[in-house]
């Protein structure tokens, strides 16, 4: 419960920080949008329209209230610079975000479904055959994948699977009309990349979690009592390993989400990370804020889930001292 409220406080604090970035901006939004040559009355009108003439605290709560109703305001780009032009081409931030958020969730979801089972199997088997050649090569390879930046992995995949052996497309452009099979085909490379970059972490963490458990006394006891290798693992080790493993998964999903920003950029995939990078270029703050808020709250929630699983699966932690 305490943990839950702490998470809420964190998101709340971050929303304050995000919002206050408005006021850190050199100069003023209105002048920023209209340009240097704008007349005073035009600036004043726009300030009134954006609500910039109200005190910051009022503006913050207005904004927060709107966010809760799913209204992130409207994007700066495309806003008409000509005064009195009513044909405003500015788009609602929500309209920009929702389809891209779906794309990102699809990408990370598929990657997670691939990465989680694979890395669990690899991690557990590496722990069982500890210090064998299999284990050494697996941990060695995972160290390399962990140490390479996302774009390195991504470009190696492009080089091998898209240009030298053209199996998959380099640019994964999907739209509403794409069928599911088409989506899988087009997102194959970004999915592989995301899978590989998180698999290294997950595998190493699973391996050390299992090794920790296997070295405890009750496992020794089970072995001595004549349980088979299979029994020791499935009956004795796994129930206690779920807590660390599920924490590993939750942490790595959060990590994958952040990694998707770079991967989407490489493959020009229309996801939320790509949108955020583009908006940072254009200093389109409402969009950046909305994306950042989504990223941060997902990240906080995933970490919260990791903590909660840890607490639930270990009854001793349910009753604090």
């Amino acid at each position, binding site marked *: 419960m305490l943990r839950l409220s702490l998470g809420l406080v964190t998101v709340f604090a971050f929303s304050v920080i995000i919002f206050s970035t408005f006021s850190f901006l050199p100069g003023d939004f209105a002048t920023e949008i209209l340009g240097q040559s704008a007349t005073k009355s035009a600036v004043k009108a726009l300030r009134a329209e954006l609500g910039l003439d109200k005190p910051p605290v009022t503006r913050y709560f207005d904004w927060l209230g709107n966010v809760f109703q799913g209204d992130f305001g409207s994007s700066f780009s495309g806003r008409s610079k000509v005064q009195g032009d009513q044909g405003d081409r500015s788009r609602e931030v929500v309209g920009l975000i929702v389809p891209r958020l779906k794309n990102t969730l699809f990408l990370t979801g598929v990657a997670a479904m691939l990465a989680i089972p694979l890395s669990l199997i690899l991690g557990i088997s590496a722990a069982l055959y500890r210090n064998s050649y299999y284990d050494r090569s697996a941990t060695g390879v995972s160290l*390399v994948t962990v140490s390479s930046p996302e*774009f390195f992995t991504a470009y190696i995949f492009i*080089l091998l699977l898209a240009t*030298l052996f053209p199996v998959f497309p380099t640019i994964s452009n999907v739209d509403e009309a794409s069928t599911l099979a088409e989506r899988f085909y087009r997102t194959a490379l970004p999915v592989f990349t995301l899978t590989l970059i998180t698999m290294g972490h997950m595998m190493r963490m699973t391996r050390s979690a299992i090794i920790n458990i296997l070295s405890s006394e009750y496992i020794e006891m089970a072995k001595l009592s004549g349980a088979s290798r299979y029994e020791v693992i499935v009956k004795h080790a796994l129930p206690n390993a779920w807590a660390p493993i599920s924490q590993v998964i939750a942490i790595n999903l959060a990590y994958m989400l952040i990694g998707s*920003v770079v991967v989407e950029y490489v493959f020009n995939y229309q996801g939320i990370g790509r949108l955020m*990078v583009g908006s*940072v270029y254009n200093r389109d703050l409402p969009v950046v804020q909305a994306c950042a808020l989504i990223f*941060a709250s997902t990240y906080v929630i995933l970490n919260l889930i990791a903590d909660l699983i840890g607490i639930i699966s270990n009854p001793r932690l349910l009753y604090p001292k």
Partner: protein
Amino acid sequence: MSENLSYSAKSEVANLIKRRTRLERLKIALSKAPISAWFGMIVLFIYFFAAIFAPFIAPHGEAEIFPVAYAPWGDGHIFGTDQIGRDIFSRIIYAARNTIGICLLATFIALGIGTVFGIIAALDRRYLDQLLSRIVDTLMAIPVMIFTFILLSVFGPTNFNLIVILGILESTRFFRISRSVAVGQVVLEYVEVARLRGENLSYIIFREILPNIASPLIIEFGLRFIFIIFTISSLSFLGIGIQPPSADWASMVRENAILIQYAQYDITAGLTPLIPAAAIALLCVSINFVVDWYLYITSGLKDDVK
């Protein structure tokens, strides 16, 4: 002759427990170092050598432009030239200087801020500790890269802003670790004695506590350095990190990425954008090796658990 006959256990023991100098201990540690640590140290040495002596090693200037853009390998340019005709090999060497320099600065800032506040929090243990710890908890719950995104889009992506922002955001990890280690130290007698002697705060922090908590901080320094290299590289790759015309590995990858399309005609063209990326990966693997080794010798950790 008479000295040899009269045996003194005391003198022999005294010989044996003679305190080794730092250099001797270093030599012994090095002779026991595994091959991975040697590999890491040699690579790191090459990187730092390249970074420091970049103008003397690089065959061409950092921003020197040649008439042929996208020149192939060889023929005066070892790795060819980039999209506006700059020598890629020279830029890789200069990039060592820029990337490592900026990342090191950011890590040092993080180390400085985090450690000082961490020890102060450990010494105080009252409101200040609570306040600082809660702030750090909040900051740590937010992904660093997203936070940096926002701050850079507000303050503008300059190298200076990049260093300061990352230095401050990453200091949270140093705060956590230095606070938790220092909490165990501040209750020990030597800190008490220093306080009673009337030493001031900075003496207690830097001369008394810091030397005793140095080794976890050094390990954290190595790991954070890798993390900062990653973050800055990702940002540069996205075009909002280290700014041109400074060469840096990640933006070189982005600038030359198009060459990958021609890999089926000329394999070296496809490899060109991967070289700077591989440079980052190699650097991080090497740091990992050295940190692992350091962790092993300072904690006496058994290989079993690692």
